[in-house]
């Protein structure tokens, strides 16, 4: 007993040091697993509020680029609307179901990014929306130019988003001009380039092809823009990886939409049966 006390006396700092390191390491492990509530995250009231204030100030410095982004998005949506009007014109005989009214599939919640990361291997973003605005985990986060991530840890007024630039992110994506699909991942190197893996061998691709979301998950709607192919390997390998340059500049994000899938429960029930 005496020796035990002596031991503790002698190594008290070292033991305390080990205890602190153990706590920190447990937090790191906790942070690296997806389906767990996180203790250390920026979604709580204090850090979320402070990050809000700080982003309110820094937002003034890129109002111009954000305006540009919104204008571009408006143009894209207007063009889509024109196309829709043309197609509905040419099939006048068939009844047009107002899908927005009767069979709405997705609804958007606007949000603002208050903290952004893109330089680590596992990046997270913080937005100023939480459970009280109807956010739940595993909802898609997009903006006018493309996909951004998935909500992962939801607090009362803020949520944490697992960025597309995260090694744990795996997103279903396909070519715009064919239905071959693959998995979108990030290798952690360049924040403008992500990797499209597991594309079938027979898929024909060339540099400059557009990649969009595949719509095979319950999270992302189909057809959200992602990026264009910039590099195709010369030889076919088992994983068949293509480099995709994102339309989004992940280092400069502000206004985003959180996409809520109204059919999520139904789709999950179907796949469980």
């Amino acid at each position, binding site marked *: 007993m005496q020796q035990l006390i002596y031991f503790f006396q002698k190594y008290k700092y070292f033991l305390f040091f080990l205890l602190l390191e153990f*706590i*920190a390491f447990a937090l790191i*492990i906790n942070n690296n697993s997806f389906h767990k509530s996180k203790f*250390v995250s920026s979604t709580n009231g204090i850090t979320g509020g402070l990050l809000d204030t700080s982003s309110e100030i820094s937002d003034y410095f890129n109002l111009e680029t954000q305006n540009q982004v919104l204008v571009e998005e408006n143009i894209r949506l207007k063009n889509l609307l024109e196309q829709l009007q043309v197609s509905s014109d040419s099939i006048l005989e068939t009844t047009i179901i107002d899908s927005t009214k009767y069979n709405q599939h997705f609804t958007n919640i606007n949000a603002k990014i208050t903290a952004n990361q893109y330089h*680590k291997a596992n990046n997270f973003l*913080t937005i100023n929306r939480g459970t009280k605005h109807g956010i739940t985990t595993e909802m898609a986060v997009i903006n006018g130019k493309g996909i951004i991530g998935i909500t992962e840890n939801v607090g009362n007024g803020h949520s944490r988003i697992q960025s597309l630039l995260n*090694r744990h992110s795996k997103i279903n994506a396909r070519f715009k001009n064919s239905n071959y699909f693959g998995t979108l991942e990030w290798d*952690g190197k360049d924040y403008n380039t992500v990797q499209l893996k597991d594309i079938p061998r027979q898929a024909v691709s060339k540099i400059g092809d557009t990649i969009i979301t595949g719509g095979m998950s319950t999270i992302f709607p189909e057809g959200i823009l992602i990026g264009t192919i910039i590099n195709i390997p010369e030889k076919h390998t088992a994983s068949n990886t293509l480099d995709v340059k994102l339309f989004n500049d992940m280092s400069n994000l502000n206004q985003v939409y959180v996409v809520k899938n109204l059919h999520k429960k139904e789709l999950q029930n179907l796949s469980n049966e």
Partner: protein
Amino acid sequence: MNKTIYISLLFIFLLFLQVFILNNILYLGYVNPYLYIAFVFLYPLRENRFPFLILSFLLGLFVDFFSNSGGVHAFSIVLIAYFRIYLIHSIFKKNTQDYQLFNLRLESFGNVFNYITILTILHHFILFTLINFSFQNFTHVILNTLLSSVFTLILFFLGNYIFSPKQQ
């Protein structure tokens, strides 16, 4: 100045400087200074090291809270906080009796430089290894460590020079 007030002001100043200003620098997209470890260099030497270790841990944890990184900053700052005393013993040849009078400004620049550099590189290396959390992209970790260490060191010595009391 009262030591307790000095320490708490230093704590809050370094925390806010890190999370609101330095975390947004990201020169070339990834080179970032981590100046909050100056807390470890500037904390006065004491016989009882428990408050120092706890405060270092808390500082790291708060930086983690703001940057969504689990416990990587807490882990790496506690590591250098623990090893600080052994470096002081070996580099500056100080004993327990000298703790009260120890001041970095009174030591020779070469020794101070070695001391700060070793701790900074150690901290950054552990930090980037934990952020990466795998053996892929290890060259990236080394590169990040070196570039960010240089950045942190320049900032620390500049700040030290600017805030130092005027030479008589």
